[in-house]
């Protein structure tokens, strides 16, 4: 043995989850040596042996001869292990920058909006940047009123408290008096919110109450349906590999798995079970055919339906052909969903014969597709037909337990405290409803349309996912009376184009002269940053000091102190500090900081964490964390919807009738003419809002259906530049030009027909534009469908038309979920795929192909900075 060498100078704790909104997860121990991050390790729940290991009241679930125990350390995923490369990314914005041909003041000739994305940037000082921003805010105020300023500040990213990250600017704008807020729509829960909520309410997001579902499943479940859900991919950013650990335990219990998804996903790859490939967003046809089988074979619980629901007869009549003359037989469904009718029948019987849970992880399958309210509602109806709420049945959400700090979203053993970071949080306050707001899905339309007080843009719902279903009956407008249309955007979430619906239209909006000033603050030069006029460089959390919680890990809640691991890179500041720089120039710094420094904020964070009675501030700072014990008596909480199953009269749902509303009188009353979301659920093929099915006219030109899930090797648009991921075969396909193209999964049969070989660069196109992809020919995707994850970094070939990076949100439908549902549609849309003629593309887009890129990371900020700056 050689002499032990120094492997670290210090260890700091960091929560590297991606929920944001003050809801932490993925806690890590980060080792630092010589001022550099050397490694990231799991967080030991007995760190420093600071507390008696038994004091956290370790939980276990014993059932069927197996024991499921809380782990003693966080179960990390690759994201945390590689995240330091985000801090050290060559694509970090190094200093404040101004677009070279933009001048403040609003003069249309000096804005050069048409050059956004094209023209380069010059370095400016922090002082100059803050002054320009402050002056522009004051100009907006005097010229239009403060509602002319749109704050874009939602979405997932690093999870911080003092430093936001999303929404720090709203604290300043609220102090100044007004602004317009972009409201996040239910993104990964669209169908649950717009559809399922009308059937079963289920606060907050329309997914089933989760209390003690983990224990219930361990004890009683016989079959688990992974209906588009992929815990081996989609849960990583919200608790690492806890979901994988649970899925493996369910396997050990002998629970039978069925994977219903167009792809043989990463969970199917790692767990035993039956794969039933279904064409993207045709699940509702399959669901209707299952109901048909159950009705015709008497395989459902009619008594439960009679006592627990209203309006089943509407659905029954629809399924049996009484409404439109079409019986929803398995043979009928086969043509639509691509599953042989005999397998649909076998599946329906298999389900009816087993106590079954349907698992979800958000964002998969149908939930972000056109008319997503239909399959979501149908799922609830099918669960009801099998006695929803009986032991071991219902819906199971694999992650985001304690979402919004609520008990009802926690499937695991109850914690004695759900901690909070409210005492020092500077991010967006999701409960705050500003007077002027626009749903995120309608931003391009709001900017590009000719709206006024007399002719406003109208929609229904405040659109935040956590509101009751009745909110969807309220109409809202932009601009609100007395308010301005928007003329300035302040974004700390510059990834609209890579995460939302119809990104090409957003690019057009960003390049509109109506917007006089776009301010973006972000650590990396990526995505919407291309269209900014001023760019502020932001820290990663490795460079910051903060107070944090971890409540999504599934084992133990905790609060902890995050010491800075490294010095700020370049001239970067935190999101909060960026806002403070502007506040100084506006003369409101002291008001905004409330006179508290970081030490003061951390103290207040502890004070209001709900843990102050359990751990003194001195002990908290000395130990750097406090681990919260599991609640006594958690085992006795009645699971899921068991109480409703047992006695619906005394344990009603939050629907108007208290029962499952398979036919919703509220929908019928409020939207009597809506033929896209009718009062009862059904198979919805094409309509006025969308023609994305294989039976639409458009399918003649665009015959394949694109499945675009939340990615395995990113969290939405986060981490696309991590070279260690890009080396993984399912992460990127490197072209002959060395460029990292986003993989496009194609079935060997389709590939042969299209003359495409594995590794070819392909064009993925429709009438909304084109993105490139790297062909990944694999039997893991069914014929007729292609699969390309969303969130690849924007690298436009032609603005508003085509993209080299594979940012496929630019060719998603622009229209919202359906007429009265302002949700996003980013999955299950029609495309054509062909082998790209790279020489022709290079000749056509010489500038785009001349952009510098690093084969290990992708496009680089260097290429956008004019050397020497303006000094």
């Amino acid at each position, binding site marked *: 043995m050689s002499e032990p060498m120094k492997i670290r100078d210090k260890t700091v704790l960091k929560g590297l989850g991606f929920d944001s909104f003050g809801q932490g997860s993925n806690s890590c121990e980060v080792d630092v040596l010589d001022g550099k991050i050397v*490694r990231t390790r799991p967080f030991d729940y007995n760190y420093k042996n600071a507390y008696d290991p038994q004091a956290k009241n370790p939980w276990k679930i014993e059932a069927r001869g197996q024991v499921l125990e809380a782990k003693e350390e966080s179960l990390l995923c690759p994201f945390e292990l590689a995240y330091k490369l985000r801090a050290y990314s060559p694509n970090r914005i190094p200093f404040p920058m101004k677009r070279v041909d933009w001048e403040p003041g609003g003069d249309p000739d000096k804005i050069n909006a048409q050059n956004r994305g094209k023209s380069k940037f010059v370095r400016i000082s922090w002082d100059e940047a803050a002054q320009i921003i402050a002056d522009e805010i004051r100009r907006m105020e005097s010229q239009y009123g403060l509602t002319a300023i749109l704050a874009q500040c939602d979405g997932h990213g690093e999870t911080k408290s003092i430093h936001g990250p999303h929404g720090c600017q709203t604290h300043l704008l609220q102090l100044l008096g007004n602004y317009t807020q972009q409201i996040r729509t239910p993104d990964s829960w669209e169908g649950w919110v717009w559809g399922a909520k009308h059937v079963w309410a289920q606060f907050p997001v329309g997914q089933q109450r989760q209390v003690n579902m983990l224990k219930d499943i361990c004890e009683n479940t016989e079959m688990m349906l992974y209906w588009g859900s992929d815990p081996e991919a989609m849960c990583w950013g919200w608790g690492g590999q806890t979901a994988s650990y649970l899925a493996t335990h369910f396997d050990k219990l002998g629970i039978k798995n069925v994977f219903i998804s167009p792809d*043989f996903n990463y969970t199917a790859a790692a767990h035993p079970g039956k794969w039933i490939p279904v064409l993207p967003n045709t699940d509702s046809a399959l669901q209707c055919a299952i109901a048909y089988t159950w009705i015709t074979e008497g395989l459902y619980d009619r008594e439960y339906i009679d006592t627990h629901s209203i309006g089943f007869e509407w659905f029954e009549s629809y399924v049996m052909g009484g409404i439109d003359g079409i019986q929803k037989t398995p043979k009928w469904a086969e043509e639509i969903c691509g599953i042989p009718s005999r397998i649909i029948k076998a599946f329906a019987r298999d389900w009816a014969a087993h106590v079954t849970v349907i698992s979800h992880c958000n964002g998969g399958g149908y939930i972000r597709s056109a008319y997503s309210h239909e399959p979501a509602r149908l799922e609830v109806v099918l669960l009801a037909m099998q006695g929803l709420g009986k032991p071991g049945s219902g819906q199971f959400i694999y992650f985001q337990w304690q979402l919004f700090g609520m008990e009802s979203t926690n499937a695991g053993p109850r914690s004695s405290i759900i901690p909070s970071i409210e005492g020092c949080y500077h991010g967006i306050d999701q409960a705050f409803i500003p007077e002027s707001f626009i749903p995120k899905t309608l931003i391009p339309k709001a900017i590009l349309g000719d709206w006024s007080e007399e002719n406003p843009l109208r929609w229904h719902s405040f659109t935040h996912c956590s509101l009751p279903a009745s909110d969807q009956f309220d109409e809202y407008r932009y601009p609100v009376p007395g308010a301005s249309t928007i003329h300035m955007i302040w974004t700390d979430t510059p990834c609209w184009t890579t995460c939302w619906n119809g990104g090409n239209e957003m690019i057009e909006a960003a390049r509109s002269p109506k917007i006089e000033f776009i301010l973006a603050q972000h650590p990396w030069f990526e995505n919407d940053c291309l269209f900014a006029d001023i760019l502020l460089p932001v820290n990663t959390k490795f460079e910051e000091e903060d107070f944090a919680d971890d409540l999504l890990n599934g084992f133990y809640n905790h609060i902890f102190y995050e010491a800075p691991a490294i010095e700020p890179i370049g001239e970067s500041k935190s999101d909060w500090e960026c806002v403070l720089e502007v506040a100084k120039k506006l003369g409101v710094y002291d008001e905004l900081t409330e006179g508290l420094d970081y030490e003061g904020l951390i103290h207040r964070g502890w004070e209001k964490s709900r843990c102050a009675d359990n751990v003194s501030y001195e002990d908290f700072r000395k130990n750097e964390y406090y681990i919260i014990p599991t609640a006594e008596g958690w085992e006795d909480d009645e699971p899921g919807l068991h109480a409703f199953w047992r006695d619906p009269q005394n344990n009603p749902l939050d629907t108007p009738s208290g029962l499952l509303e398979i036919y919703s009188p509220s929908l019928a009353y409020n939207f009597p003419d809506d033929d896209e979301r009718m009062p009862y659920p059904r198979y919805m093929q094409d309509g006025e809002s969308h023609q994305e099915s294989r039976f639409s006219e458009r399918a003649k030109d665009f015959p394949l259906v694109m499945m675009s899930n939340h990615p395995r090797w990113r969290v939405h648009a986060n981490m696309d530049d991590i070279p260690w991921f890009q080396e*993984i075969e399912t992460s990127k396909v490197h072209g002959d030009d060395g460029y990292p193209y986003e993989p496009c999964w194609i079935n060997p049969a389709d590939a042969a027909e299209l003359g495409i070989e594995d590794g070819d660069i392909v064009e993925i196109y429709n009438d909304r534009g084109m993105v490139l992809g790297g062909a990944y020919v*694999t*039997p893991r*995707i069914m014929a007729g469908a292609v699969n390309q994850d969303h969130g690849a970094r924007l690298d436009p070939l032609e603005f508003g038309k085509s993209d080299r990076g594979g940012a496929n949100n630019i060719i998603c439908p622009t229209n919202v979920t359906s007429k009265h549902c302002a949700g996003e549609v980013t999955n299950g849309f029609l495309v054509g795929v062909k082998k790209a003629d790279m020489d022709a593309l290079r000749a056509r887009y010489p500038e785009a192909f001349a952009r510098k890129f690093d084969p290990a990371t992708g496009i680089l900020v260097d290429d956008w900075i004019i050397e020497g700056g303006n000094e």
Partner: protein
Amino acid sequence: MKVFVIDEQKCNGCHNCQIACKDEHCGNDWSPISAPQPLTGQFWCKVDERTVGQTPKIRVDYHVSRCNHCENAPCMAAAENDTVYRRDDGLVIIDPEKSKGQRAIMEACPYNAVYWNDELDIPQKCTGCAHLLDAGELPHCVDVCTTGALRFGDYEDFADELVDAVVMKPELGCGPHVYYLNTPKPFYAGDVYDPEADECIEGAKVTITRGSDGARFEQTTDIYGDFWFDGQELGNHELSIEAEGFLSCTKHFDAEESLNLGSFPLKRDY
């Protein structure tokens, strides 16, 4: 003697081990045990992903490969000046100082587990994170394996489990110290149905007879009419399907890989 034990059935393909290795070694200098690994291009611990079968009957196999810290290490034999040495715990280390220019060390490895660092002009590979072991910690890849698929420790502690373990390329006689459990074998699958009734046939008897040694494997189909034979060998086979009330069906196949043998319609025996 330290060994790595990899249970391929437990591996969920997350790649934590591959990424952890890069976290520990890329840009980090642990001399005299190892010089920094370049940012990309080297895989001291590598996860390979292989999809076998045909839609919809497929399987994804994950295989972790790394330096085997061989008992009879060819790299050691190829090295000059005792550049490659074995520690008391059995780990094989390439001295980064002495190894300069010695391409033979890389070329000698039959497992392609030694990489060449152009910038430093040295061969590099897994050290078992010897610098962490000396500080009382586990190799980083092992520390972050969440499934228990990748373990590290003394051979004696695993001995009972290693009875059925395999090593890579045993025929070379290198004596690898990386042991694999539950390595995947070829499968043959398919399904059986009644086209007249448009129903899956449950309970059909499916037999596969291997040509090479006449070994027979029998299964009955499940509710989906599915059969799935794991643990098979490649080569000539005879498949036969019998179900009550149906004419039997046989098929000969010569497999070079795992196969979805397809959907078998059975004719009614009137």
